[in-house]
């Protein structure tokens, strides 16, 4: 049998375990794939599931911070118990399944792509509701008792700063804007807040949005124990406003509404100014991530035009960093 046939047969068997065996084979459709995780849509009639697994089933962490798919499934279950909108984990793959590392979860309808969410009439009410819903959801995540969670890496603001600084230094290029941002962040670091469960990549693209707003929080791969302001600020990073710069929260909402909803749902009381340092750290991190992706092209590991092109997006984050520094000085 070919690899594709093996995959289809194995997936059909797992699907049968979840929904009951049937002579009809489920329809299998690939949703996305490539350097990060593969996503597959599996359906038979109204029975639908999403398979999220490592590329070709082989786990190779996309970043040293990634926690692995089995742990990701555990976190999604913990979030679900806490009433956070997430998919239901239907099955965590084991070696006898023959599909590699990953899990199956319930299918949730909606849109993840930022552009339609921020522009289409269909999502007008969703945009009104999202800042509040995101504030509530993040408070819920940050309030989950960390003692109930699997072992997770700990990573605070200054740790991340030095980790990304080391990656940048490793490239051996001179980018004065990054130097200035690193020095500024080192010299103005806020006192660390108590560690909470941090999603780590909370922004449009990883949120399933339907016409009433937030339907599910996806992609828990970068979750860790950290400072709650990291999640609150990451969605404010200008790169994640997708052109709608005037709306600091994800391109759709105002920071005051977002932080008020966060506090109302049990999160700590933060002011917009408390988010500034973390937003700057976020822009710096994204800029260095773009350099990492370009490095995959430069080294020959991923020769695609997309990886080459991303090297010319580093300047976007340099511009954002300068705008933030200028606003700080004003």
């Amino acid at each position: 049998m070919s690899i594709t046939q093996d995959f289809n047969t194995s997936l059909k068997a797992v699907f049968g375990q979840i929904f009951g065996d049937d002579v009809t084979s489920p329809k299998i459709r690939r949703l996305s794939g490539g350097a990060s995780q593969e996503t597959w849509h599996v359906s038979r009639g109204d029975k639908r599931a999403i398979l999220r697994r490592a590329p070709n089933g082989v786990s190779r962490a996309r970043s040293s911070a990634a926690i692995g798919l089995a742990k990701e499934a555990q976190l999604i279950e913990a979030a679900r118990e806490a009433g956070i909108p997430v998919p239901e984990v239907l099955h965590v793959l084991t070696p006898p399944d023959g599909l590699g590392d990953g899990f199956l979860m319930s299918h949730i309808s909606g849109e993840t792509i930022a552009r339609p969410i921020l522009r289409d009439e269909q999502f007008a009410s969703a945009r009104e509701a999202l800042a509040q819903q995101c504030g509530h959801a993040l408070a819920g995540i940050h309030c989950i008792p960390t003692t109930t969670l699997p072992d997770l890496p700990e990573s605070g603001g200054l740790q991340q700063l030095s980790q990304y600084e080391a990656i940048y230094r490793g490239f051996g290029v001179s980018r004065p804007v990054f130097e200035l941002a690193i020095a500024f962040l080192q010299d103005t670091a806020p006192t660390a807040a108590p560690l909470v469960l941090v999603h780590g990549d909370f922004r449009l693209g990883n949120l399933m949005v339907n016409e009433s707003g937030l339907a599910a929080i996806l992609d828990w791969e970068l979750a860790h124990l950290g400072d709650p302001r990291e999640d609150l600020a990451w969605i404010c990073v200008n790169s994640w406003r997708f052109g709608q710069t005037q709306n600091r929260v994800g391109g759709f909402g105002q920071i005051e509404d977002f932080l008020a909803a966060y506090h109302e749902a049990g999160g700590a009381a933060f002011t917009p100014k408390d988010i500034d340092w973390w937003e700057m750290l976020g822009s710096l991190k994204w800029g260095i991530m773009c350099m990492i992706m370009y490095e995959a092209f430069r080294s020959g590991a991923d020769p695609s035009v997309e990886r080459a092109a991303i090297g010319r997006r580093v300047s976007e984050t340099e511009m954002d960093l300068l705008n933030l520094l200028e606003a700080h000085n004003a």
Partner: protein
Amino acid sequence: MHNQPSVAELLQAVKSFIDETATPNLSGHAAFHARVASNVLGTALRDLADRPANDSAERGRLVALLTSLPEADLDSLNEILCQKIRNRELSSESPGLLNHLKQTTMAQLRVDQPHYSGLRTAENAGD
């Protein structure tokens, strides 16, 4: 060496082929990568046109800012600037530094991603 067509003309010809002929016949990942490829050629064309003037302006500002020898090359000047920032000899409050970096980055973005929202923000902040 002959220069007809020029490098810019050659790149423009390939970009037009991608936009007008190839992309309409592609779908899915291939169409996505074709659009990326077209944008990359746009950046390459702008880089060819703007780099000499941009590099010369950047070098001129660095020589003034660092009171360096006028013949220093751009890479060494930027390395010296990085060292001075690391050593805290220069900060975001040092006269001229933020302005220099802003001019340099705006010029870079007009080549790399001229539609990026942060460029509008920088332009509207008014220098």
